[in-house]
């Protein structure tokens, strides 16, 4: 079990073969090559880095809010600044970090885990990335121009309607939603198709790693949930830009319509963030307890059940709007029942740990931290599902505490563990373990000191989204404690980031499978070559690298000079046919420029729509213009 263990898939038969494949699958050279890259590792890395840039900015905004609230009657921020900042914080974390980063990791990992050479529709991956990049950039440019949205990340009407929010601030929010949702939907479709059609031969649906299952479920949730918020954001955009009346009660519109559309997306969104994290947890527990997950079928069914139930609880965000009793009871029941599949997974993980041999290395530490925090967040979620308690707790700091317990505890902790775990695969180098432990304990302690007191603050009457409070409320000391905790939490995240940046250049060389992990991404070099695998692996269990991979048959015969991908059948993953993968192109980037330009111009004039559609369609025509299949290796290099 040497740390430098290599596996048969990683080794090319000859250097010539390797070089030819590198050329076939590698990026073109040339001045604009950066913009025409389409391979999933490059785009995945950019996606992850960009998402973490937004995460850092969102975190800074949180720090500003914590400073403002550290004492009563503070004047560090004005009301207007605070309202922009909390709106930016929520919008950033939900739209620009949590969902994109989960998709970003999947873009990098899923094809490797499936044993294939790329993600389906690679040009669309690049398009999705640039839409995401442009959307976030637009939002932060607006912020620095003092034009940031200020009606909350939930953007309730009529506060966000033209008569109460004149100016461009809300329009920018609505367009940001369009940018990020297009990006998210595009990636979701790619993930579904890749998982369905590009699995290694033998990886039948009951042998898919749990992380792959979690991303499949998540991608389907994205496909069903995101359209609701796109409808909502376009309705509000139309109300504001061309004077429609979807939400204007004076003209027959309805303000509650917004809340239904928004939360029909907004609640599944939580699970879209959380379910990939569950896959990461299963992956890490398997590797660091040296045992396959106990109750694979139960785990898969739990993921699917969570996804289904997740669409049936949006109304618990609206209990205070005054719905009929019987309707509320249904949503209470659904909201409580979603705890069952989560519970099943927790129990299965504990059983796995009990039967395995846990190694307390940083990824497992983050997962153990996740269990402690997430179980608490889940229990406060059950409290919030009860209508009478919800009527006291809704829109208070109790909810702030709850949502950070489930989102930071439930998603960011597993994500940090997973990044620590997959870092060597992406960079070829290991992160420092001692600093990994330090950053874990700092984030764990800082997190709890920040957010646990907020439960109490909510119970003693502190509403959310207030920029200041009076001394006689008595909220000062706990707020100060929370602010101190936020400092520790920030320090922990900083340690993690510095560790990653340092290790990227100076970390120990990882080798192909430093953790002796069982899934296919570890069957190739770290970082993988442009073509991922020379001979495509085949699998016969959920942990292929744990059952004597040197004896496993491999798929050979894929062309060296063509970008060929093996397509397998949906359920049993029997080889079906070869698919010719598209080549690099700048048109995905240019299409994103055209679409993004149209979205931004729409802030100012409806005429941007016809003109923008014409330009974007032209770029799409160029993108999809058929070219005769050619040998990639021999294609002339771009000037």
């Amino acid at each position: 079990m040497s740390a430098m263990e290599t596996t048969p898939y990683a080794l090319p038969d000859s250097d010539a073969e390797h070089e030819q494949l590198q050329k076939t699958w590698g990026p073109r050279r040339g001045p604009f090559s950066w913009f025409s890259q389409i391979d999933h590792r490059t785009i995945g890395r950019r996606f992850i880095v960009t998402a973490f840039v937004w995460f850092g900015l969102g975190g800074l905004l949180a720090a500003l809010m914590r400073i403002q609230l550290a004492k009563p009657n503070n004047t560090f921020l004005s009301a207007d600044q605070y309202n922009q900042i909390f709106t930016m914080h929520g919008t950033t974390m939900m739209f620009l970090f949590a969902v994109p980063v989960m998709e970003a990791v999947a873009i990098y990992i899923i094809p490797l885990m499936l044993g294939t050479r790329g993600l389906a529709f690679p040009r669309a991956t690049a398009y999705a990335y640039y839409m995401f990049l442009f959307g976030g950039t637009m939002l932060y440019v607006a912020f620095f121009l003092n034009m940031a949205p200020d009606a909350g990340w939930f953007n309730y009407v009529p506060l966000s309607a033209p008569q109460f929010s004149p100016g461009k601030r809300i329009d920018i929010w609505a367009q940001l939603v369009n940018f990020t949702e297009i990006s998210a939907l595009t990636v979701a479709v790619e993930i579904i198709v890749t998982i369905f059609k590009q699995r290694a031969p033998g990886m039948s649906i009951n042998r898919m790693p749990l992380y792959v299952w979690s991303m499949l479920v998540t991608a389907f949730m994205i496909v069903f949930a995101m359209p609701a918020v796109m409808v909502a954001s376009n309705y509000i955009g139309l109300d504001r830009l061309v004077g429609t009346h979807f939400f204007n009660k004076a003209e027959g519109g309805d303000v509650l319509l917004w809340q239904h559309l928004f939360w029909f997306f907004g609640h599944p969104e939580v699970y879209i963030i959380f379910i990939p994290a569950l896959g990461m947890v299963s992956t890490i527990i398997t590797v660091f307890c040296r045992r396959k997950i106990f109750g694979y079928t139960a785990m898969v069914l739990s993921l699917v059940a969570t996804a289904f139930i997740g669409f049936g609880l949006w109304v618990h965000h609206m209990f205070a709007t005054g719905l009929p009793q019987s309707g509320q009871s249904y949503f209470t029941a659904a909201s409580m029942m979603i705890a069952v599949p989560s519970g099943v997974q927790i129990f299965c993980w504990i059983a796995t740990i009990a039967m395995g041999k846990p190694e307390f290395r940083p990824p497992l530490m983050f997962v153990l931290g996740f269990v402690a925090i997430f179980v608490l967040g889940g229990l406060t979620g059950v409290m919030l599902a009860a209508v009478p308690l919800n009527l006291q707790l809704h829109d208070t700091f109790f909810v702030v505490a709850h949502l950070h317990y489930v989102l930071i505890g439930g998603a960011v902790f597993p994500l940090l563990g997973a990044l620590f775990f997959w870092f060597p695969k992406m960079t070829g180098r290991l992160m420092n373990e001692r600093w990994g432990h330090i950053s874990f304990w700092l984030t764990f302690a800082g997190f709890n000191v920040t957010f646990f007191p907020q439960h109490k603050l909510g119970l003693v009457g502190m509403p959310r989204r207030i920029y200041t409070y009076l001394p006689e409320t008595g909220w000062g000391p706990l707020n100060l404690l929370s602010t101190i905790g936020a400092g520790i939490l920030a320090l922990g995240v900083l340690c993690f980031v510095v560790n990653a940046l340092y290790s990227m250049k100076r970390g120990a060389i990882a080798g192909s499978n430093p953790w002796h992990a069982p899934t296919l991404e570890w069957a190739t070099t770290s970082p993988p070559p442009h073509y991922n695998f020379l001979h495509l692996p085949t699998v016969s269990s959920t942990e292929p690298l744990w059952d004597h991979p040197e004896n496993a048959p491999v798929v050979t015969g894929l062309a060296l000079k063509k970008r060929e991908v093996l397509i397998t059948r949906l359920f049993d993953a029997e080889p079906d046919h070869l698919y010719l993968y598209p080549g690099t192109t700048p048109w995905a980037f240019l299409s994103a420029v055209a679409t993004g330009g149209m979205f931004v111009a729409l802030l100012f004039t409806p005429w941007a729509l016809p003109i923008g559609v014409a330009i974007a369609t032209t770029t799409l025509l160029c993108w999809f213009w058929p070219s005769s299949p050619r040998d990639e290796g021999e294609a002339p290099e771009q000037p």
Partner: protein
Amino acid sequence: MTFVTFFAGSGIQSALEPAGAHAARIGRLWDVFLIISAVVWLLVMIALFIALARRKREETPDGAARARTTVSIATAITLVTLAALLVASVLTGRAIADHAPPGTIQLKVTGKQWWWQVEYDDPDKSKRFTDANEIHIPVGVPVNIQLHSSDVIHSFWIPNLNGKQDLIPGHDGSIQLQATRPGIYRGQCAEFCGLQHAKMALWVHAMTQSDYANWLTAARQPSKIPSTPEQRKGEEVFMSSPCPLCHTIQGTDAGGKTGPDLTHFAGRRSIAAGTWPNRRGYLAGWIVDPQHIKPGSQMPPMLLDEGQLQPLLAYLESLQ
């Protein structure tokens, strides 16, 4: 024990110190949920620690079967616990549901950016009157409050008395309060409603029934006629400045509807919707420069010299 005291809680705006029938029932439900949740969390953590610390690592078919049984039992317990909590929640929900028995006092509260208008209904038109940012209720009597908003969504929340209810334009709602002991309770808007959402508070005075009857009689009267020369000068200042365009004072010509009714202004605890105490210095600051205290408020600054301001303050303080 630290855990219990941490959640003991106190305060004039606290769900943990019920002073109303509804809040008390919710408080009992909270106790049930808190205790069960704490036990569940501890059990999961204990199981996790046992799993981590276990020495025996030999995998046997027997062990896997045992694990299956354990996980199944744990899942069954989860289901039963959740079902029990669901029943408890629904029962409490029924008990606190809106129903207005006959004889209930009827109030109407309108949320505005960023203050509360309170209207006391009565079959006899002459007995109706309007107040702002403070509600007076008698102890032991159910009070039904019609909730209404004419601008954006607000949320009415007096944690010591009951949970919250949103005020949604186009969707009138209602909430009931029934105080169980006299006292003064604070509440504040719980739904983000724009720039000054943080400064939109109100007070509920729960009074004994005889105190309430006295208060009601006084509140139905028009404002007192100014008795000193300074107060009379102040009334002149008030009437000749833009004040009457927005504010009403019953018994005078001032009849504006945009801002709070000032008929019995001097009896209020605070100004600017619970932002500052109702004392002369604060009041002067509020009149001269409201945008400093509450930027975005609809109250414009008043350019008054000292000879006008002091009489105006004296007049306002006489509005008992």
